[in-house]
């Protein structure tokens, strides 16, 4: 890497069959990934999914067991971190406690031999509106200020690729929102390639152009945020990115534009183009906010799926919306998010209801949810589980 020069613009990144093994476990297995120059890319996944390891590999802090890392077309797999035009905003910020804010920001430039390191550092601090604390020690700043200093310290080097390791995790909600906007603005201003690692789905979706959902060392699905949300391809994505109602059953007909699945004796349709598999046992799903609750049985209508009757077992009011848990015999618990267009919840607990949604809103997955995962994800509370069990017991007793 040439000294005393900045990267002209963001560079594209390519990971080629990256595998990283630690003694005792494999963090990443055969990972392929391309990130276009100048984009804001988010790597989203639960803790332990390998996203931080991926980031460390790109930064050069770890060496891959196999595979290649290409930055702007150049192979950087075996170069040291200080030789890569990549900078990181660390999760803990990792500001040097024994240096002033200004010295922190100028650190990288000085190592690269820039004559005007201090002036550039001041400039970067002005960008994050912290030039007035340039002489302070990091410990004297608030969490949000430290985060901005860490950002300035990385951005000032104009790296071809900026890595963000959950830098907003330590901030409170309000500050986080503000920082998200600021990050987006800065990215627009400096035009770098950003790679953001996070476990916060909302953060990933609001900030990134492209989101990759990672699980167990593999990328489950990659795409624009809306695409990932509206058309998840795996049970993991369907439940990690928001909530989903998932139903598993046999395909009974696959003619025309829709496939029809038999779920507990009811027929549910999904558009053929939105389904990954078209035969055998498949899992289909729909987002809870796409469902409509009705007090009476609706007249059958093409283009709409109907479930019912079911019973409202829980209604939790959360201001903007109300979240209902509806127990449908033979199906299980179905979650519904209804906007509060009137005052308060529309349905009371214990009410008999029908559920309906547009066939176009459904999606078909390429896999099935793992056994312990329940169809409504995290939202099944213990009372719902207890109710489920009671229903099952009653059913068994009736059979006996």
């Amino acid at each position, binding site marked *: 890497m040439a000294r005393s020069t900045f990267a002209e613009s963001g560079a594209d990144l390519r990971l080629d069959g990256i595998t990283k093994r630690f003694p005792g476990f494999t963090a990443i297995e055969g990972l392929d990934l391309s990130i276009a120059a100048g984009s804001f890319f988010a790597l989203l996944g639960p803790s332990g999914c390998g996203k931080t390891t991926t980031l460390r590999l790109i930064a050069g802090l770890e060496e891959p067991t196999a595979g290649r890392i290409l930055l702007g077309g150049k192979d950087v797999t075996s170069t040291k971190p200080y030789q890569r035009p990549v900078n990181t905003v660390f*999760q*803990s910020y990792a500001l040097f406690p024994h240096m002033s804010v200004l010295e922190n920001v100028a*650190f990288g430039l000085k190592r690269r031999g820039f004559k005007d390191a201090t002036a550039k550092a001041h400039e970067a601090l002005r960008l994050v509106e912290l030039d007035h604390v340039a002489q302070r020690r990091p410990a004297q700043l608030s969490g949000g200020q430290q985060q901005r200093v860490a950002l300035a310290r990385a951005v000032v*080097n104009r790296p071809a690729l900026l890595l963000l390791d959950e830098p907003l995790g330590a901030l409170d909600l309000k500050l986080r929102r503000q920082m998200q906007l600021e990050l987006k603005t800065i990215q627009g201003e400096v035009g770098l390639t950003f790679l953001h690692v996070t476990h916060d789905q909302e953060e990933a979706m609001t900030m990134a152009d492209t989101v990759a959902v990672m699980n167990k060392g593999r990328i489950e699905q990659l795409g624009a945020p809306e695409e990932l949300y509206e058309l998840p391809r795996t049970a993991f994505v369907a439940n990690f990115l928001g909530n989903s109602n998932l139903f598993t059953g046999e395909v009974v007909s696959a003619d025309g534009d829709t496939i029809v699945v038999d779920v507990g004796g009811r027929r549910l349709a999904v558009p053929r183009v939105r389904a990954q598999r078209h035969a055998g046992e498949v899992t289909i799903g729909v987002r809870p906010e796409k469902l409509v609750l009705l007090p009476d049985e609706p007249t059958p209508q093409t283009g709409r799926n109907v479930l019912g009757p079911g019973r409202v077992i829980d209604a939790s009011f959360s201001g903007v919306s109300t979240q209902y848990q509806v127990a449908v015999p033979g199906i299980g618990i179905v979650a519904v998010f209804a906007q509060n267009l009137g005052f308060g919840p529309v349905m009371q607990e214990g009410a008999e209801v029908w559920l309906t949604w547009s066939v176009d809103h459904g999606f078909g997955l390429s896999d099935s949810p793992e056994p312990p995962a329940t169809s409504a994800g995290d939202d099944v509370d213990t009372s719902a589980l207890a109710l489920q069990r009671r229903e099952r017991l009653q059913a068994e007793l009736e059979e006996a």
Partner: protein
Amino acid sequence: MRGLGRYALAAYSVIALVFLFIPIAYTVAFSFNDSRRSNIVWRGFTLDNWTSVCQAQGVCEAFGNSILIGVVATVLATAMGTAIAIALVRYRFRFRAATTLLLFLPMATPEVVLGAGLAAEFLTAGVPKGIGTIILAHTMFCISFVVVTVRARVAGLDPALEEAGRDLYASPSQVWWRVTFPLLLPGIVAAAMLSFALSFDDFIITNFNSGAETTFPKYIYTAAARGIPAEANVIASAVFLLALVIVVTAQLGRAARKRRMARS
């Protein structure tokens, strides 16, 4: 009852601290005693002992030896101990448990055993005793204390700081000198001060390995039978005051920093 209990504890603590201070005050006071040969009975105040410390035979040589030994042993022990501390925290290696045990044992061994063991080894190997053997002995028992002191500091050092250094274009040696070393420095200084204090005040191990050479504690031990000259008190008092100034300054600085941090 509660209030009384609290005052009782405070009063006890004050008395206890005064009690700890009695022999110090006694030693300092007798550095001003107008004594002739033996410094046991108070004969009146004088500054003569302070103005002509080196008059008592051998006391300044012994003191000089102690400083020399202390400095060399401290440098050696601090260098080796710091390296071990870093290795223990930052690296995994085989025989880790054995290494830890090896470091713990010298601290759990009575000094008389350490001293006699080294003396037996020097005897067997035919090494003549002197300043060199004293330095070897002191370095040995200081290493463990350095390791424990510095290790706490290394363990408290966020590895992300060094990674940040590497990420920000610093070569490995620049990372060490600009990030790691300055951050470990307080721990290393504390370890060096402890080392020097241990070496300077050691008598038992020294006694076994010094041969005809004298250190300050050995001088006092030898002189104890016939009476300690007041000049020895002068040197001890001066060292005491110096150490006190250093420690008080450090403590005040720390307390002030704490307050400043709390305010901002």
